[in-house]
């Protein structure tokens, strides 16, 4: 019986891995960009399954929500904006545009060289991987030993927000920077939103409160079970994206300044708590034992809000347009 279970697990893993590689090939080399993106979303979902197999449910949640969902939505939005841009370019210069980019692949010989180089790269990396010792020297034991003083009981959250909180702080910095950078490039494109129709509208009406609830649950659960600020934030962002897609014009509803405050909130609260800890005599970001759980939750709430709004702002693809009336 045990053998059969093992063999089944093996077969499942092998199938999963082959699916991943096949999907990746379709994503990267398929002739049609729209299909590539759809395959990319499927790729992300299968990847999430792989993470479950690797007993990393936290990562699986993040991969499904961010890697597949939001990244996919970003790609699709970018593709339709590309098409809109192309239409404008065509209207300007109707004659010279016949090349849609399909002829830009390099010559056969060049491709062979790149194939050989990639294969060589893979070979070297594979050899290095196979030479690794069977036992992984990790930090599992250190994390387990210190978990009780970290303020949370989910080890991944403990690493993210306590042991290696500084990484997460810089990562919030990267998110913040991405919005600043995107806003510096361009105002958000004005896109005509088609009316959603009754089916979508009622679906969104049912789903968005549930997504809010799910985000809250993920945030709360993160302290002791898979979940946490990033997963919760991305669900929040998904709700916002859904509302945007179904025609809610949030740009008009949301004045710019409060939006900016929320964007900076996660980073600001994180830094402030770190510095306060330092000023009362601890190390930077060192939480007093009794308050560790509360402080982490406080940081996570601020981070969740910021992440959700940041990702939704990135989906809009630029800074909010100023009121034309002024």
């Amino acid at each position, binding site marked *: 019986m045990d053998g059969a279970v093992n063999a089944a697990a093996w077969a499942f*893993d*092998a199938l999963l*891995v082959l699916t*991943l*590689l096949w999907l*990746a090939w379709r994503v*990267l080399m398929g002739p049609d*960009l729209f299909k*590539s*993106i759809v395959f*990319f979303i499927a*790729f*992300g979902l299968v990847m999430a399954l*792989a993470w479950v197999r*690797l*007993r*990393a449910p936290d*990562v699986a949640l993040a991969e499904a929500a*961010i890697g597949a969902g939001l*990244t996919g939505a*970003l790609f699709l939005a*970018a593709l339709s*904006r*590309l098409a809109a*841009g192309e239409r404008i*370019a065509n209207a300007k210069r109707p004659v010279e545009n016949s090349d849609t*980019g399909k002829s*830009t*692949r390099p010559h056969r010989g060049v491709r062979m060289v790149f194939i050989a*180089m*990639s294969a060589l790269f*893979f070979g070297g*990396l594979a050899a290095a*991987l*196979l030479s*690794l010792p*069977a*036992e*992984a020297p*990790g*930090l599992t034991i250190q*994390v387990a030993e210190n978990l009780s003083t970290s303020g949370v009981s989910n080890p*991944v959250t403990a690493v*993210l927000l306590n*042991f290696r909180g500084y*990484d*997460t702080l810089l*990562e919030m910095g*990267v998110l913040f920077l991405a919005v600043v*950078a*995107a806003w510096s*490039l*361009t105002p958000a*494109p004005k896109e005509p939103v088609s009316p959603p129709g009754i089916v979508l509208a009622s679906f969104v009406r049912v789903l968005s409160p549930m997504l809010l609830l799910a985000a809250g649950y993920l945030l709360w659960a993160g302290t002791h079970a898979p979940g*946490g600020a*990033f997963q919760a934030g991305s669900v929040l962002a998904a709700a916002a994206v859904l509302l945007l897609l179904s025609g809610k014009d949030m740009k008009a509803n949301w004045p710019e300044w409060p939006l900016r405050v929320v964007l900076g909130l996660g980073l600001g609260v994180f830094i402030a708590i770190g510095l306060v800890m330092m000023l009362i005599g601890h190390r930077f970001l060192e939480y007093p034992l009794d308050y560790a759980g509360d402080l982490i939750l406080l940081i996570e709430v601020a981070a969740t809000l910021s992440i959700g709004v940041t*990702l939704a702002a*990135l*989906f809009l*693809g630029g800074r909010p347009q100023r009121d034309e009336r002024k």
Partner: protein
Amino acid sequence: MNAAMLYALTGAGLFALGLYALAVQAHLLRKIIAFNVMGSGAFLVLGALAHRAPDQVADPVPHAMVITGIVVAVSATAFALVLMLRVQSETGQPHLPEQPSD
């Protein structure tokens, strides 16, 4: 070879596939997608290697690193897409022009 190694090798394979696509595809959106596949590959290597000892609890540190990596990747992707659209609106095409010979 155990399952963890299988996934690690898959990660390496995804990285190499992405590398190839990055080299031969000219369309910027495809290059950005290729980066995402390569990133997934690198994360898979990181996460799978943490899992080599079969009957142990999985090491949470690489998991945290991968989550950080995923968030960094989506930030970079979002910015890259906006930049790509600006390049298109400024030059009329979503490719980079040929490098002037130097």
